[in-house]
C-alpha cells in the first residue's frame, strides 16, 4: 500500500459513550489500513436526529461549525463512522450550496464554512480508497465459516443524491469487505430497512417489531451474526435484543458486530482494541467458531 492517507476525523457523540467499541475499532482498523486520522479540535455535536426536526438552519449551523474547524485545520475531507453524523454533515453541505440558505447559517457562526470540505463515511473510505482487494491481501486470520448478515441501516446511502455512495436500495460495500475477510455473506434482503431508530424511548413496540423483523430474517438466512455500521442500529439490535425477545416471544441470541470489529479481527489486531467485551449479546461462541475453522484451515 502507498503512503498514509490523511483525513479529518469526526467521532460523533455516540463514539464517546454508547458505541465506544465502534470508535476504538475504527481507529485501530484505520491505522492498520494506512488511513491517518486527524481529530477535529473542539468539535461539537452534529445535532443528531432532533436538531433538524426543529430548524434546518440551526441544524446546519451545528455542522457548519465543525466544517469550518476542518477548513481552518487545512483538511479537505472529514470522515465519520456514524451515519447520523454523516447525514447531518452531508445535508448541511448540500443545503449550503444554496446561497440564501448559507447566508442564514453564516450569520450564526463566528467563522463561516466555505464549502471546501468533502464529507465521507469511514465505510466509504475503506471501500473506495483502500478497497476489498487490498484488505484481502492483509487478512491474517480469515473469518471462514462465519455466516454474517450485513445491515447498513436506512440513512447510510439515502437519499442517494445527497449521500452519493453505493446503491440506495441494495448497497454492497460491506458485503464485499466482509467477503474479502473470508466471511460468508448471506443474502440479506432488509439491508436498508429501518430498525426503529430512536423510537426505542418513545414507542418501544416500534423498535421491537422492526428490529425483531431484521433479526428474524438474519436467522432465516442462517446467519450466525449481524454486522452493523450505525451505533443506533447496533444498539437496537444488540442491547435491546432482550426486549425484542420479550415482546415477540422469541429466543434470539444473535451477536451484532460493527464491521470495523470484524475487519480488525481478520487483520489480526489485538482483541482488546476491538471492544468485543462491550457487546451485549455475548459473541464468544461465534468468535470461537471462526478460530476453530481457521485452525482446521491451517
Amino acid at each position, binding site marked *: 500500500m502507498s503512503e498514509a492517507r490523511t483525513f479529518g476525523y469526526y467521532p460523533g457523540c455516540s463514539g464517546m459513550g454508547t458505541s465506544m467499541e465502534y470508535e476504538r475499532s475504527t481507529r485501530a482498523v484505520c491505522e492498520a489500513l494506512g488511513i491517518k486520522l486527524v481529530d477535529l479540535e473542539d468539535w461539537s455535536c452534529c445535532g443528531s436526529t432532533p436538531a433538524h426536526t426543529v430548524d434546518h438552519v440551526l441544524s446546519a449551523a451545528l455542522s457548519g461549525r465543525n466544517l469550518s474547524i476542518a477548513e481552518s485545520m487545512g483538511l479537505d475531507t472529514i470522515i465519520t463512522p456514524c451515519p447520523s453524523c454523516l447525514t447531518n454533515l452531508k445535508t448541511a453541505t448540500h443545503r449550503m450550496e444554496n446561497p440564501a440558505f448559507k447566508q442564514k447559517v453564516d450569520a450564526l457562526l463566528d467563522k463561516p464554512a466555505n464549502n471546501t470540505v468533502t464529507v465521507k463515511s469511514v465505510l466509504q473510505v475503506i471501500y473506495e480508497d483502500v478497497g476489498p482487494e487490498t484488505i484481502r491481501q492483509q487478512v491474517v486470520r480469515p473469518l471462514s465459516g462465519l455466516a454474517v448478515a450485513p445491515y447498513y441501516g436506512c440513512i447510510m446511502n439515502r437519499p442517494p443524491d445527497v449521500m452519493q455512495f453505493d*446503491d*440506495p*436500495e*441494495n448497497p454492497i460495500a460491506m458485503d464485499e469487505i466482509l467477503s474479502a475477510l473470508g466471511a460468508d455473506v448471506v*443474502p*440479506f*434482503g*432488509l439491508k436498508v*430497512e429501518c430498525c426503529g431508530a430512536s423510537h426505542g424511548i418513545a414507542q418501544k413496540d416500534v423498535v421491537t417489531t422492526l428490529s425483531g423483523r431484521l433479526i428474524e*430474517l438474519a436467522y*432465516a*438466512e442462517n446467519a450466525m451474526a449481524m454486522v452493523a455500521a450505525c451505533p443506533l442500529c447496533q444498539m437496537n439490535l444488540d442491547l435491546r435484543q432482550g426486549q425484542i425477545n420479550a415482546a415477540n416471544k422469541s429466543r434470539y441470541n444473535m451477536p451484532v458486530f460493527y464491521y470495523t470489529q470484524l475487519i480488525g479481527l481478520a487483520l489480526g489486531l489485538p482483541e482488546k482494541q476491538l471492544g468485543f467485551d462491550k457487546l451485549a449479546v455475548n459473541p464468544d461462541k461465534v468468535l470461537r467458531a471462526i478460530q476453530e475453522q481457521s485452525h482446521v484451515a491451517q
Partner: protein
Amino acid sequence: MKIGVFVCHCGSNIAGTVDTAQVAEAARALPGVAFATDTMYACSEPGQEGIIDAVKENELDGVVVASCTPRMHEATFRRTVERAGLNRYMFEMANIREHVSWIGKDMESNTNKAADLVAMAVAKLRENRLLFPKKFDINKRVMIIGGGVAGIQAALDCAEGGLEVVLVEKTTTIGGKMAKLDKTFPTVDCSSCILGPKMVDVAQHPNITLYAAAEVDDVSGYVGNFKVAIRRKQTYVDWNLCTGCGLCMEKCPSKKTPDPFNEFVGTTTAINIPFPQAIPKKASINAETCIMLRKGKCGKCAEVCPTEAIRFDQKEEIAHEEVGAIVAATGYDLFDHSIYTEYGGGRIRDVITSMQYERMLSASGPTGGHVKRPSNGEEPKSVVFIQCVGSRDKSVNRPYCSGFCCMYTAKQTILTKDHIPDSQSYVFYMDIRSPGKNYDEFTRRAMEEYGARYIRGRVAQVYEKGDKLIVRGADTLTGTSIEVEADLVVLAVGAESTRGASALAEKLRISYDTYGFYMESHPKLKPVETNTAGVFLAGCCQGPKDIPSSVGQGSAAASKVLTLFSKDQLESDPQISQVDIKRCIGCGKCISTCPFGAIKEIDFRGQPKAEVIETVCQGCGICTSTCPQGAIQLQHFTDNQILAEVMSLCPPLLEKSFE
C-alpha cells in the same frame, strides 16, 4: 402586382381575440393590395370559392391568407389559387392563430401583430416568382426494415399489391417479439400458430426478398429513388446450401451458449437455429462461444453437415438495393429491470421478467412449457406479478405507459392457473389499462374466473427469506401495507425504443422523440407518415403497441406505399437552391456545408462553380446563409424575399439586391 388578402376568423379561434375586420382594413392600405376582406372559415368550401371569385373578379396576381399554421393548410390554399388560375407559389400564408390568437388575449396588441404579419406576407408575395415543379420517375420497390409482426404485415400487403419488397431483419429470423410469446390476449390463442403461417408466406412469396442477419448501413436518395446499403452480418454458414436439417445442432459440443430467443432462461448450442418455426430456417454460429472460431479446433458441425455449408472464414458483406419507399418497423426493446435494485432482478434468481415467464410457459421453450422456479426447479404455488416496471415512472425516465403490460399480465395469471391449478397469483398494479376490444372483459375474467388477486399499489421491496420471496408493498385501497410470500416474482417490464433506433432515424432522416420512438408526421391525421417523404412507420418503433395495433399500422403503412406508387411519376418540389453562375466564385463553402451532399463542383469555362443536384436538394437553406457572395439562393425563400419581410416591419436601410 395585384394582391388579395383574406383574413380568416377561424370561428372564435382567431376572431375571439383578433379584430379581423381591422386587420383586413389595414391590409387594404398596403402597397400592391387590390382586395382585402375577412372571412369566417377560409378553408371551408364557401371560403375557398370566395377566394377564387375574388381572384377572377379583381384579376389578382397573388393571394395572402391570414389564418392558421402553413403545416395545416398551406397545401389546401395552394390548390385553391391554382384552381383560380394562378401559379401555386403566388400564395403566402400569415399565421395569426398559433402565432397570435392562441398565445395572447389582448385584442389590441393581437390585432396589431396580426396586421404586421399580414404586411410581411404581402411584402414577400410582391417578390415571389412563378415556380414550376419537375417530374421524375418512381422506382416501385419498397424496403421494410424489421421483420416483426408489423413489418411482416407491411411486407405481405405490399407484395400482394404487386410490389417488389425487400425485407431487412437484424436477427437471424423474422417473427420479432411475437414469435417469443406463448399465447396472445384476449383470445388466448397460440402466438406461433397465427404468426407462423404469415412467416412462411414471407419466405414463399415470389415478390419478397428477405435479408435476415442484416442491418441498414446507409440510406441516400429521396422519395421514389432511395439507394440503400445493407450490411449482411456473417453467420459462418452458407445459407444457400443450409437446409435447416439441424444435424449440426445435435453434434455441437458447445452447449452453454446464451440463448437470446429464450430470454437467456435456457442455453443453446454455438451453432443453432433459434426456434423450430424460424424463417429462414438456417443455422448460424455464435462466434463468441464457437470452439472452432475461438480456439481454432473442433469443426464438428462442418464434419456432419450433409451439404458442406459451414464457412468459418465467412466475412460480412454489403448489399445494395434501390427502392422508392421505406417502411421502418424496427419494434421495441424491453426495459432493463435490474435498474430497480429493490426488486432484486438480476440478483435474486426467482425474480424474472414477463418475457422470461412467457418463454417458460411456451411448450417449445427451454422448460418444455413447465413453470419452474429458476433456483430449485420446483413448481411455484404463489406467483406475484409486479406491474409498471419501467412504465409510468419518472424516476427511471419512463413516464409513459407501455400500454400492453396490464393485458399480458392478466393473460399470464390465467395461464398460470391453467398450468398449476392449485396456484395463487397476485398482481400489484397502479391502474388497469385495458381499453381494447374485449380487453376489459379479459382482465375481469382473470380476476373473477381465475381468481387472480389484484392489489392496487406499488411494491417497495422484494427480498429472500429462506427459499421464499417476500414481496412488500402498499395496498392503497385499504390504506395498509401488505406482505405476500411468493415462490416466483414476475416483473411486468415496459417497452422502450429499440437499441440503435436513433442511429437508424438519422440515416433515414426522420425525427424521434426524447425516448427514441419515431415521430409520426401528425399525431392524429398522419399516423404512419414521417416528415421525410417516402418513409413510413409501422409498429412499436413509433410507440408501444399491442399486436392488433401493430398489424393495423403495418397494413396502413403498406397502403400508403401503394398510394404513393399508384402514380408513375412524382413532382419534385421547386423550393430548392439555385446557383447564380455569374456571382459564384467557386469557393466550395456550400459544398462542404450541405448536409445532403446536394451540391457538386462543376467546371464552367475553366472556372470551378457550384451546381445544385435538384433531386437531392431538400431546401434547407444552409448553403444560402453560407455563400459569401449571395450567389446561391433558395427558391421561394430568397434573400430579397426575406429582406422584404424584414423591411416591411423596419424602415429600409439597404437597397442592394442579392439576386
